[in-house]
């Protein structure tokens, strides 16, 4: 069956902040949904499908997505779904829906207020509940295990990691939505203490509250957009085994495979937005996707500069699309991750006319 051409025709995101204390999720989302729909030139009832990504354990209550629906204005009743995943996978579900021909446009949104709980501890509950979670290894410790494996295998150094952080912050300085925008040099960063060796604070993402929304369209619906359409040329996602002991933590085979299936050919893109919450993960992902020095990686500053959980992956796709729409290149790659140590990965290839 021939694929339908699907375009990103609207994208909006909140500023990422350490702690949003004034607004609840509904109040955060409402203006962002409105902004994305306005860009797309579509009013709520014209949108054929709505799907969101969020996580109850971030919100500290079951059915967190149910009350968030209040922000959508779901009346008359809408065709709607939700994934307990990053919004990038909600976007995948929307893309599939458009492929069935049952809808010509879709609203995708995601929200996450990581500030409400102790995020590294909350993430521990993603682990094997019988043998791993009861030991309470936190997310930073697990990432440090992966970083050590990577440095040992590749011969790279903590200096290489710091260089990733420096570049991320420099890029983020130009991104008003980013959270970590202070510039620093490698020497200064390397003089700071370890959080969990070999990781220092600059190797780890900030804790962020934020939300984002994106609109997809097919066929006639694309023409309504105020934003030049950015086409999804390929999209795929893959998961790896969960048990850390059976994985090669220094590589990301699921990213490589998803990239191949999505048609991400080395040398074929001008820019890439990689969802790498930790510095070493950006290097692992570059290796997996064969991104050379000529590719502008994370021009937004990436997840090291703003990491609202369940949103940061969707933001990568939106940022890449917005940059193409603004003329920063013709072809881009966007990536999202989920789970401990890059367990699950999604790759999306975007192209401007």
């Amino acid at each position, binding site marked *: 069956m021939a694929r339908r051409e699907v375009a990103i025709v609207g994208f909006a995101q909140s500023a990422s902040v350490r702690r949003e204390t004034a607004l609840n999720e509904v109040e955060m989302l409402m203006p962002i949904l409105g902004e994305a729909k306005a860009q797309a030139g579509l009013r709520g009832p014209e949108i054929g499908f709505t799907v969101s990504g969020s996580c109850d354990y971030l919100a500290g209550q079951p059915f967190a997505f149910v009350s968030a629906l209040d922000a959508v204005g779901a009346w008359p009743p809408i065709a709607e779904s939700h994934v307990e995943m990053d919004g990038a996978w909600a976007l995948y579900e929307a893309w599939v*829906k458009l492929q069935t021909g049952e809808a010509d446009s879709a609203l995708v949104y995601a929200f996450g207020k990581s500030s409400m709980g102790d995020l590294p501890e909350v993430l521990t509950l993603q682990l094997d509940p019988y043998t791993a979670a009861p030991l309470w290894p936190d997310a930073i410790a697990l990432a440090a295990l992966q970083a050590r494996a990577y440095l040992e295998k590749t011969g790279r150094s903590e200096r290489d990691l710091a260089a990733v952080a420096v570049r991320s912050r420099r890029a983020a300085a130009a991104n008003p939505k980013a959270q970590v925008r202070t510039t620093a040099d490698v020497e200064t960063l390397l003089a700071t203490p370890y959080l969990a060796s070999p990781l220092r604070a600059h190797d780890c993402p900030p804790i962020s509250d934020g939300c984002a929304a994106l609109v997809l369209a097919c066929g006639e619906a694309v023409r309504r957009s105020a934003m030049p359409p950015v086409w999804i040329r390929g999209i795929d996602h893959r998961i790896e085994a969960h048990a850390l002991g059976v994985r090669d933590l220094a590589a990301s085979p699921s990213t490589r495979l998803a990239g191949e299936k999505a048609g991400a050919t080395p040398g074929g893109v001008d820019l890439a937005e990689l969802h790498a919450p930790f510095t070493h993960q950006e290097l692992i992902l570059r290796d997996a996707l064969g991104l050379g020095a000529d590719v502008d990686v994370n021009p937004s500053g990436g997840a090291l500069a703003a990491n609202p959980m369940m949103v940061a992956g969707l933001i990568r796709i939106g940022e890449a699309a917005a940059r193409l729409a603004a003329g920063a290149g013709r072809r881009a790659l966007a990536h999202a991750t989920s789970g401990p140590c890059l367990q699950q990965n999604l790759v999306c290839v975007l192209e401007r006319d």
Partner: protein
Amino acid sequence: MAERCAVIGVGQTKHDVKRTDVSLPGLLREAVDRAFADAGVGWRDIDAVVIGKAPDMFEGTMMPELYLADALGAAGKPMLRVHTAGSVGGSTAIVAAQLVHAGIHERVLTVAYEKQSEGNAMWALTVRIPFQQAIVAGAGGYFAPLIRAYMRRSGAPEDTGIRVALKDRQNAAKNPYSHLVFPDVSYEMIAGSPMLWDPIRYMETCPSSDGACAMVLASEAAAKRARQAPAWVHGTAMRSEPTMFAGRDQVNPRAGRDCAAELYRKAGITDPRRDLDCAEIYVPFSWFEPMWMENLGFAPEGEGWKMTQEGATALDGDMPINPSGGVLSSNPIGASGMIRFAEAALQVRGLAGEHQVPGAERALGHAYGGGSQFFAMWIVGRARP
């Protein structure tokens, strides 16, 4: 034109209050192994996995699909995790079916589960958010006032709920996977059971169960190579509306009516009571049978109870509802919707065993969730659409 999609394998666990004999992955594998045996496929035949369950807090594992990827042979494959409250079992199956309809995959494994004994579900449902109004006594306390509103609106006889429970509990005795079976169940036994949330009696409520359900969905080409006759997906639909708004009709919600209308249009159904041979409907409290009969268009508004009272919804009636015994008999929350979808498939494949509706050609699977606001439905048929 989307690709055709068929159910080629169905499996479910023995549902029980505590399945302490299996771990979480063990529970899922019990359902998946049965679905694979039914379909005649193995792990290498599966292109993608779509998993669903109700809130993670029920078991205390966050995004458990990450951990379950190993047990579900998902490594190297795409895996999606759906969560749409109580309708999740149904919407999970629909997301899986769309991967086939869209021509992306040949065979998709979809699985839904709940293992409530591993956590404290009642606690998870009543987490006390400081500034929110507390739900007083779980789902029963939430739905009982709606049932009272239905009774007032329809003038239904007060024993309608008892008759639904009696019928479902009798059906459950014919289903080897049922959690609750009362061999000597009688009208008097149900009528005499304690009132919990008046007007809901103990024996008119669903249990909390451990259980899982799995299906293998396939493209037309893959369905031809299946071991047994498939059930063809004739249509799917999902609809949502907000939890509460001024003037919201929670007894006969528009999202349910719109969802059914879209479904019937896709499946070419003009008179559901005549065109369908049976239905598996999400009935967690007995009174929801007559309420959904109206919402689904099987009966005019205010007259759903007549179908129950006349025996139309019994296994030998003209519109058998919940031949399996329904949610009243087995309720692994996240899986309950998928069990409805899977039981509908078993009926049209002629594989429902003792609770088979003779000659069933077309069947409806239905799930709902939240405050009667999320709906997921499909129609499956013996004939290729």
